[in-house]
């Protein structure tokens, strides 16, 4: 705190002449949102210098494959890299890796200096927080044994891959998207996988009841051992006292496990925003233009709590989305803000998750639905649920049914409807019954 006040005082008494030149935009967090923000700003003609800074030692990469193709070894790490080094150089973006920002001093005009744990300082005229989220830790006995792992970043994935060869039994804790994707991948790699889900159904509130039930049956029929309403009591060590060997459940059951993979959700990285005195509530609170409560800092992606962008949502409703699509669309909104334009979030939120041969695509957000229509073609393995509110389609979960997904996504984007009664017949193509509502 000492330097903080000293520097502010110096700035106040001696005027701007003694303050180091603060130019350019500093983007803290070099992942999906930060990369897109830099790319969109250059596309919009933003002429100032951009520093894209992150604390990981890797070039910015795509996370989704970490639980899927990368874990299974079907894509190379090089394929996950967003942009070539040449691209950044040509676009005058300074990519800084391996610097963790611990504190930021900021003036009322939005400029300031960010301080890294290494002691390096990064001055800026404008600031963007694209710091994402971190894995929620499970604090139980044995939680720090070797082989108790999480899956949020590339280092986590490398640690998991390094252990997979020697493991026979894996216990996955958490039946959400990442847990189920990783469980399916590990099962495909020949591991004996058990999934423990604390709640009464899979995937929490991200999908409706029917979809959760479909996934439960589909995974069980593919041999995955899924236990609902089940939580781990402790992890016990092997004879060496270091490596995990088993998971003990609340009811006393003991499951052997040389790897425990925990996927129980994420916590937004709001530490810097809190230190800056920005409004924080399940993420950094931003307005429709991705601006935080100081009116100058933008916050984007997994870390941002924003007004629900979906047309027709309840006034005042807020949402924090964790998806690639949101990181991209939200970054575009922020890029407009930083170039002095005001453009609202465009497009319909969508998401995908690949688990074994189950390819889930979600269009829209099902929050607040009052009716569902099920389309199930058992023979061709296609399954969709359409969600309605007051007769208007608002979302769909589609498994191995890309035509349904595309039809709903396009209808939502154009403000059209797909009448529920006509949608119920799985033989009918949704595109043909879409109406201007």
């Amino acid at each position, binding site marked *: 705190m000492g330097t903080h006040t000293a520097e502010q005082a110096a700035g106040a008494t001696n005027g701007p002449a003694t303050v180091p030149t603060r130019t350019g935009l500093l983007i803290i967090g070099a992942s999906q949102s930060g990369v897109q923000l830099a790319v969109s700003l250059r596309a919009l003609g933003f002429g100032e210098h951009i520093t894209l800074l992150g604390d990981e030692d890797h070039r910015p990469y795509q996370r989704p494959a970490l639980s899927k193709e990368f874990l299974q070894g079907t894509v190379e790490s090089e394929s*996950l890299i967003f942009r070539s080094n040449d691209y950044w150089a040509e676009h005058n973006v300074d990519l800084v890796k391996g610097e963790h920002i611990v504190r930021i001093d900021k003036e009322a005009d939005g400029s300031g200096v960010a301080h890294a744990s290494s002691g390096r300082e990064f001055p800026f005229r404008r600031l963007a927080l694209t710091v994402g989220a971190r894995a929620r830790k499970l604090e139980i006995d044995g939680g720090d044994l070797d082989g108790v792992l999480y899956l949020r970043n590339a280092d986590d994935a490398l640690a998991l891959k390094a252990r997979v060869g020697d493991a026979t039994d894996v216990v996955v804790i958490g039946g959400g998207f990442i847990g189920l994707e990783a469980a399916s991948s590990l099962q495909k790699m020949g591991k004996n996988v058990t999934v423990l889900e604390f709640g009464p159904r899979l995937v929490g509130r991200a999908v409706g009841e029917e979809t959760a039930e479909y996934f439960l049956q589909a995974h069980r029929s593919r041999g995955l051992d899924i236990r609902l309403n089940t939580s781990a009591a402790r992890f016990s060590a092997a004879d060496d006292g270091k490596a995990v060997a088993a998971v003990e459940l609340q009811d006393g059951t003991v499951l052997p496990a040389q790897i425990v993979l925990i996927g129980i959700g994420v916590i937004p990285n709001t530490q810097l925003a809190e230190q800056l005195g920005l409004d924080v509530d399940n993420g950094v609170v931003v307005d429709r233009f991705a601006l935080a409560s100081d009116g100058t800092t933008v916050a984007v992606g997994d870390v941002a709590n924003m007004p629900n962008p979906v047309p027709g949502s309840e006034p005042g409703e807020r949402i924090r989305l964790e998806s690639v699509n949101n990181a991209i669309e939200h970054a575009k909104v922020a890029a407009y803000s930083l170039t002095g334009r005001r453009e609202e979030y465009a497009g319909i939120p969508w998401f995908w998750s690949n688990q074994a041969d189950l390819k889930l695509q979600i269009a829209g957000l099902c929050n607040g639905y009052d009716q569902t229509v099920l389309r199930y073609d058992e023979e061709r393995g296609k399954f969709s649920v359409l969600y309605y509110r007051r007769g208007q389609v608002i979302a769909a979960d589609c498994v191995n049914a890309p*035509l349904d997904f595309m039809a709903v996504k396009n209808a939502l984007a154009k403000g059209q409807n797909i009448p529920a009664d006509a949608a119920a017949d799985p033989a009918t193509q949704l595109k043909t019954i879409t109406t201007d509502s």
Partner: protein
Amino acid sequence: MPTVHFTDAEGAVRDVQGNVGDSVMETAVRNGVPGIVAECGGSLSCATCHVFVREDCVSQLPPMEDMEDEMLYGTAVDREDNSRLSCQLRLTDGLELFVTTPETQV
């Protein structure tokens, strides 16, 4: 080295050299070819990597799977006979591929 020639909807051409085994989509995105969005990073979930393949190149490419075929019905610009999703096209040794990117991907 395989080369992909990207022509955008206005007719501007960009030639990009790629690596054998990479997809046309990856080659475009890594080098910032603007006409390819590729939100899903190649997992055949988004249909924002749509390209039109020049007729005489079509036969050099592997046939499409059902999933790609179905996804192509949802592209932002309507599909044509020579439409492909570029994340499904792998560069092979000596390949010279000419593609046009649609006016919009989203």
